[in-house]
């Protein structure tokens, strides 16, 4: 009995030890909470660069709260409701605009959109783009000599061609692919997914899992971006990874940020929104996020971007149509893969 008590006392001490905050000597600077997804925040993503650059000018602390998926960012804020500590949500994309606005949790960004230098129209007053890119299947030239030249060729390819994709319910590229298929095939999307399903090794929760599996040799192609080869060229001087150019065109992704209507630090949040389209934030994008920046950088794009695939057409769908049918299209995808 005494031993049991001494054990309990011991575990109580351990517990108290655990409860002591990690940053006991926290400084008094205000903290800006940015809710984002894990790969943005990770040490090899743009997170640390952006944090350092913003903290150098704001006299504040930038704190990332990483959700395990892009869509998890918004649902986390919804779950926390009005009491949320979030100032900024960063990492939703153009395919989530309408439903994200419907939550009523977001406020206008107040940033003059004329300063954007992008090849697409943007007039949204709530969401501010921070990068963009084109979905594409990446392959290893040494393993796959003859990749499909169009989406149709991919659909018709033999089932020995293995691909990795992401779950449209959790990942923005995953949803991007569902919409890409929808834009190309409309009512025939279900049959296209039936044909694709035999080639899909697994449907991962997020982009990083799928890409990791691909690099480990688990599939011939992975859904990523036309800009992904730039990473391999810049970081490890590796030229064997290529994006497959599809003749019908590529789905487009515009990643966006917004500030919360109930942000605990509204002024800091506004400063961060302005910071997003400044050189300090944008220069991190092509070298750590591996996407296109939304303004022209002083030094231009890195040389690795020179030979990248330029899409034959940029495929997007009307945001209102997406909001209306998204659940139905994702169900269609799930059903096609379920059988």
């Amino acid at each position, binding site marked *: 009995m005494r031993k049991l008590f001494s054990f309990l006392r011991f575990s109580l001490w351990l517990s108290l030890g655990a409860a002591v905050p990690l940053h006991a000597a926290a400084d008094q600077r205000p903290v800006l909470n940015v809710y984002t997804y894990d*790969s943005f925040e990770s040490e090899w993503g743009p997170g640390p660069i952006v944090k350092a650059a913003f903290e150098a000018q704001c006299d504040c602390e930038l704190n990332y709260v990483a959700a395990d998926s892009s869509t998890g960012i918004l649902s986390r804020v919804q779950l926390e409701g009005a009491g949320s500590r979030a100032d900024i949500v960063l990492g939703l994309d153009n395919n989530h605009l309408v439903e994200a606005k419907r939550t009523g949790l977001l406020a206008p960004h107040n940033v003059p959109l004329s300063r954007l230098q992008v090849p697409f129209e943007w007039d949204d007053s709530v969401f501010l783009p921070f990068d963009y890119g084109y979905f594409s299947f990446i392959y290893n030239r040494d393993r796959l000599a003859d990749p499909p030249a169009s989406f149709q060729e991919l659909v018709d390819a033999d089932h020995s061609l293995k691909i990795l994709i992401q779950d449209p319910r959790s990942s923005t590229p995953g949803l991007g692919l569902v919409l890409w298929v929808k834009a190309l095939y409309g009512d025939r999307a279900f049959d296209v997914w039936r044909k694709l399903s035999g080639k899909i090794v697994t449907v991962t929760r997020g982009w990083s899992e799928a890409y990791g599996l691909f690099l480990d040799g*688990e599939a011939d192609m992975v859904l990523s971006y036309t800009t992904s080869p730039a990473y391999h060229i810049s970081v490890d001087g590796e030229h064997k990874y290529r994006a497959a150019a599809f003749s019908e065109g590529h789905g487009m992704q515009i990643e966006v940020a917004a500030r919360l209507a109930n942000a605990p630090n509204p002024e800091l949040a506004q400063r961060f929104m302005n910071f997003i389209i400044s050189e300090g934030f944008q220069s991190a994008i092509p070298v750590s996020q591996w996407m296109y920046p939304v303004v022209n950088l002083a030094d231009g794009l890195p040389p690795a971007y020179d030979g990248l695939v330029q899409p034959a057409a940029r495929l997007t769908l009307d945001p209102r149509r997406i909001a209306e049918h998204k659940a139905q299209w994702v169900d269609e995808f799930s059903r096609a893969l379920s059988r």
Partner: protein
Amino acid sequence: MFGLATALAVSLVVLCALGALVAEAGRVEVLAELAKPLTRSIIRFTLWQAALSALISVALGVPLARALARRGGLLGRRALIRLSSISLVIPSMVAVLGMVAVHGRSGWVNHLLSALGLGRADYLYGLTGILLAHTFFNLPLATRIFLNQLLTLPQHTWNLAALYGMRPRHIFRHIEWPLLRGLIPGAAGMIFLLCFTSFAIVLTLGGGPQSTTLEVAIYQAVRFDFDLSRAVALSLIQVALCGLLAAGFFAFGAPFPLRPGDYPGIDRPDAGARWPRIIDATVIATASMFLLSPLVAALVKALAPGGWSIVADGEFWSALRWTLLIAPSAGLLSCLCALSLANLTVTLRRSGRVAGWAVVPELVGLLTLLAPPITLGAGLFLLFRRFTDALSLGPAMVIVLNALLALAFAVRILTPALQAQRSRYDRLCAGLGISGWNRWHRVLWPALRHPIAYALAIATTLSAGDMGVIALFGTDDLSTLPLLMYRLLGAYRVEQAAVVAALLCALCAGFFWAIERLGAAGQTSGPYA
């Protein structure tokens, strides 16, 4: 009294959580949800994989239990049984990691196949992966239930069998099978329920929408779509289905007690024959290989030099500290609740007139096994955010929910023990006027000490390995070792994840060992031991 309060509190927590969700969602359309083809295919898959898992575990558990019962003197038998007694509490994320290392595309099996020139087999993700992992967890459980029963046969049965010259198949047909038959529905039912609500395994090995269970669909509805009305509808479907099935199973077969303990070898007449020897050797070797390889593979990965950098990471220490706080607290809370529920059950059973009501506290214990933790968690979160900063309550909620989840197991362990002790001594105590603390301390505690420690150990280790609750509440500041593993696996830092897995296992083993030892220490010193 305490029992009644606990039963009320537990049901209140569950009802409030559901109520808060319904209030937030506005409306809940269970029938409309049931009408969707996707929902129906999810339900079908959930039932199908759980049924297959239960079938496979039971079908393999019978020969394995038989082999272990026959081979009393086998080297390593004790270790294998010991290991299978903790299989229930091996963190699911550790098992998933091991499964990937053995059965993944670049796993051991595929290395072996390609070394033999057979090419690669791609079978891990999807139904096969789920079944493999579920069998990994539940084969030991089934085996232990059957073995327990086989070893209750007294030596003179075997002497008689030898006298009659019974052959192995006669022994099976006339002695073993009648004994096991009654247990099969209960064991299969238990495994079915565990697999029905399986979460982490399906989430990681399911391979996408083609194999989604209700539990995962609920998680996705909350976490990805924030579709609370769908989450509640799916939760109600799950609880109803699960409850019906549970009632069905337990009506057929008596629920078996979970018992700690060692399994002595018995001298059996059929141990010496040649064929049984060959069969047993094959069965035990195959099972050991299947059950041990994922753990060994996880360990081998952990020994790779790349992974240990995680120990230098602040994230790791934070997760370790939270695990050390959450697991023992949840274990203790769960044990206390289970003890008072068990006491209420026994009191009611012995009351004569209202004995029928004894199922109520038992059902309350079971309810927490059926209700999805994500739903409970989201409901409590919505409830508390009305009054306070719900985020700061995260740790408390993780503790409470983990305690609830472990309750079903703790109740299973404590009720039979308490029942036995009270039916022995209640009259004596009443006659001698022993009551209150004296009765507890001098009469009940000495016999309950061991089961309580076992229940505490199970509840603590279950909480340490939990993924279902922390998946919802986890943040950067609040993460446990399993969640850290999940994140590392997601970032494809497998070696680091393996190191965390090894440390998590060591921690669980440490908890188990320490608590069980504390319990066992009393057995020799108690006055009635």
